[in-house]
């Protein structure tokens, strides 16, 4: 894990400037979008390259995110939430939609003409030539659907989930401290977390990847996020009686 040093320029003023730029983007100001691009594209590209592996794919996903920002800016601006957080979460989902489509294509069985590739068992069971293909298509539908409920929620209801600008400004100002605290996570928990955060796997896919029971993986992931939440409260000084 790379630790990004705290930037002295980060903080409330930067967030104010970002909010102002977003307002201008909502008013169809291309130069304002260009400024937001210059500010955030390198961070998003680091993430997109990690998820999608190649620069062309990452740049294509980056373009999709900024086109979406252009389209949705009026609604996002009304929330008074953090545009930085919006960009990061949308970039993640744009990348994972692509990654899942790539995985689905890669897993697609090669079709042979006239069903010549059918096994003896399939032929003797009287299965039609494309029954395996139909089962595969059903798996494809399930796989590409993963995350679609979340993406739809993120896009339709930004006011419900976007963190406040000042909360992200505070977290940005203490990013180095937070990441040092995050690095204290036990390694087995971190591996499962990495598969969810950077490889886009669901809990059940992570269990299959690690060869562990689903219950153990689910409990481990929840413990990992509790760990991160507590570290944030400690670093940001936001403990409450409700925790």
């Amino acid at each position, binding site marked *: 894990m*790379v630790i*990004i040093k705290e930037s002295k320029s980060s903080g409330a003023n930067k967030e104010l400037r970002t909010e102002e730029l977003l307002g201008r983007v909502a008013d169809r100001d*291309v130069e304002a*979008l*260009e400024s937001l*691009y210059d500010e955030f*594209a*390198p*961070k998003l*590209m*680091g*993430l997109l390259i*990690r998820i999608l592996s190649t*620069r062309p794919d990452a*740049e294509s996903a*980056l*373009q999709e995110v*900024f*086109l979406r920002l*252009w389209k949705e800016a009026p609604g996002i601006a009304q929330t008074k939430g953090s545009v930085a*957080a919006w960009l*990061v*979460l949308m*970039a*993640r*989902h744009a990348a994972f939609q692509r990654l899942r489509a790539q995985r689905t294509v890669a897993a697609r069985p090669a079709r042979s003409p006239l069903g010549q590739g059918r096994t003896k068992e399939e032929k003797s069971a009287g299965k039609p030539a494309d029954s395996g293909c139909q089962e595969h298509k059903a798996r494809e539908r*399930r796989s590409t*659907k*993963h995350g*679609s*409920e*979340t*993406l*739809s*929620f993120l896009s339709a*209801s930004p006011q*419900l*989930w*976007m*963190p406040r600008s000042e*909360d*992200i400004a505070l*977290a940005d100002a203490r*990013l180095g401290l*937070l*990441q040092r605290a*995050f690095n204290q996570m036990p390694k087995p928990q971190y591996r499962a*977390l990495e598969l*969810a*955060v950077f490889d*886009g796997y*669901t*809990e059940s896919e992570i269990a299959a990847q690690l060869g562990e029971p689903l219950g153990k993986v689910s409990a481990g*992931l*929840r413990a990992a*996020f*509790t760990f*991160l*939440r507590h570290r*944030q409260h400690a670093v940001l000084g936001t403990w409450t009686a409700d925790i």
Partner: protein
Amino acid sequence: MDRRHLEDVYELFLLGALPEEDSLEVREHLTQGCEHCLERVKEAARTVYLLSLTLKPSSPGPKAKADLLRLLLKR
């Protein structure tokens, strides 16, 4: 789904790592306006944001920006 059960699923929901039926349930709960859970999902979004920034930044090529601006000016 009771509130205590939902307490620790928001990060996984935002990551798209929950089964679709669970995601749907979480989404319905949030859209009902539970204030406690709306605070939690904002906190979870911050966690996902911070985790996503643990990677080294990398500048996109100049053509990527030019292509984007060309598309915007066409609209």
